[in-house]
């Protein structure tokens, strides 16, 4: 520490330059993590908040579009209920729709059709639950934030089905960047087949849903259940990939973050390589004076640790400040302490690895070079 701190102070301009690069990367990391958490929330928070462990889709359905393509018969629900380890199973309908409220507010909805009273029927934080009114819907809190009110009527575009906002669930429930509205399964089937009000819905359509929502304990054998019910199960987490855009968005952001970590480690490594080469003569002198290699290595690592921690902390501070401003806008953005901490720790640890790869050069400095002017 003795030498590390004095060198940081002495070459402060150079270290400040390096530190600001790390700090800027940290800012970017915080913003990217906010964006990915925001996008995840926007994409699948409606699914995340369901008390479900897996969904049983139609056999052979493509995994990335399972929610929009899958059709399973209602009979599969009973088959799943019988499976050992399954605590409950219920029909689940999922479709996207454009609509307008009676006050002219355009709303895009992810319609989640559920059997009122089943385990996937949500308990509203405000208003009434599903049940009495077959056209009643329970919406995500975020829709109320956008100006919709309980008591409003929403008309589905083109087919003209009217839905009544009777309640709202707490927090953000979105799916594929669209707010979720829970509605009774019968009404959902009507909208799904595009039946106008009053038009009949065929018996086949009445017997079909998107998937079986399953809540099971750890012992459940999904493969056995799939065999019995002729379905294809995805765990809840795997089903996120079926949300529109989810996989593309998260993998793009992941890739950017991985690149940033690599860039940061390389930049720090390059900086400390140059710095160590510049210090070669004084390192040779100190080694000739009997400085143990371990001492010199430790001192240099402490130096890079101080630099990394200070600049990552500054960057996180700025990033959180900027993030708080973005959070107030309509951008999909959410600051999450755990993911920021993980990003900061990774930045410091990888930077330290880069620095370590550079400062091992100290061990290769020959103390003999201290002797004589230009040896």
């Amino acid at each position: 520490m003795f030498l590390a701190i004095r060198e940081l102070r002495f070459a402060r301009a150079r270290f400040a330059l390096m530190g600001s690069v790390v700090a800027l990367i940290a800012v970017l990391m915080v913003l990217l993590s906010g964006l990915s958490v925001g996008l995840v929330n926007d994409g699948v928070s409606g699914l995340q908040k369901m008390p479900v462990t897996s969904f049983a889709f139609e056999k052979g359905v493509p995994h990335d579009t399972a929610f929009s393509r899958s059709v399973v018969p209602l009979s599969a629900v009973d088959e799943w209920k019988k499976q050992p380890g399954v605590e409950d199973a219920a029909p689940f309908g999922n479709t996207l729709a454009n609509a307008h409220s009676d006050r002219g507010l355009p709303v895009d909805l992810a319609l989640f059709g559920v059997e009122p009273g089943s385990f996937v029927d949500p308990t509203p934080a405000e208003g009434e639950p599903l049940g009495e009114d077959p056209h009643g819907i329970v919406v995500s809190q975020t829709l109320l934030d956008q100006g919709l009110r309980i008591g409003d009527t929403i008309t589905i575009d083109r087919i003209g089905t009217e839905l009544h906002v009777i309640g709202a669930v707490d927090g953000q429930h979105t799916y594929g960047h669209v707010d979720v509205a829970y509605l009774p399964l019968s009404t959902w089937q009507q909208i799904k087949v595009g039946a106008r009000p009053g038009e009949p819905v065929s018996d086949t359509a009445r017997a079909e849903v998107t998937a079986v929502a399953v809540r099971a304990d750890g012992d459940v054998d999904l493969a056995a259940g799939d065999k019995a019910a002729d379905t294809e199960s995805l765990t809840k987490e795997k089903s996120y990939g079926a949300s529109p855009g989810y996989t593309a968005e998260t993998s793009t952001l992941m890739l950017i973050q991985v690149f940033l970590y690599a860039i940061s480690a390389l930049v720090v490594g390059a900086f400390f390589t140059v710095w160590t080469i510049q210090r070669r003569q004084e390192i040779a002198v100190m080694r000739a004076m009997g400085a143990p290699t371990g001492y010199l290595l430790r001192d240099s690592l402490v130096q890079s640790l101080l630099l990394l921690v200070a600049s990552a902390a500054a960057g996180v501070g700025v990033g959180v400040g900027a993030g708080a401003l973005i959070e107030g806008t309509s951008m999909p953005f959410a600051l999450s302490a755990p993911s920021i901490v993980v990003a900061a720790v990774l930045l410091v640890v990888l930077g330290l690895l880069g620095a370590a790869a550079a400062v091992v050069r100290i061990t290769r400095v020959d103390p003999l070079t201290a002797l004589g002017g230009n040896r």
Partner: protein
Amino acid sequence: MTAATPAPVSATGSAEAGLVLEDVTLVLGDGDDTVRALDEVSLSVVPGELVAVVGPSGSGKSSLLAVAGALTLPTSGRVVVDGVDTASAGRRGRTRLRRDHIGFVFQSGNLVPALTAADQLRLPGRFGGRREHRDPVELLAEVGIEHKADRRPHQLSGGERQRVGIARALVTGPRVLLVDEPTAALDRQRSQDIVALLAREARTHEVATVMVTHDHDVLHHCDRVYEMIDGSLRAFEG
């Protein structure tokens, strides 16, 4: 290791207390392109003595310091520093030997750029070891630059840097001091001052000092003068 071998060119005192080189040969380079940088060199310096080594460029003077300072092992022969044979000390043992018993003064000081004069003297204390070090402030006063204790190397003149370098080498209380061309970058008067300082320090603090120099004007400060020619050491005559 027999302690009975006489130290051929020793003038005074017990051979083992300071620095002893016995028939030291150092072959440098590899393959066919080898150089006998040191050829059967024997030298013994007791604490309190200042010995100078002069000689043409490439004659092996720096090699002598490298071997005496446990930076390199001789190809053959024996180097004993303060009673410790450098060959049998091992790598760590040699590092400890340099830390605790040997002081180096390098050409142009070779100070750590980031450290003030006082901190240059505190640095060796960070290298471990339980030996009591001398007080940095007192030592800076002794070499005559106590008023520049807070200056960094780039704020010091060449002569001042050399004084800090000498103080740094002495702060651990070494028994052997090895000095490589201390006056190379200095004018005549400052060279005299620096070598006089070295002679004084060697005597008052009982340090066996070997100084390599090109500067024949400073030799009168020294107890003995040797000449290095093609790796061989012999007494210097005028």
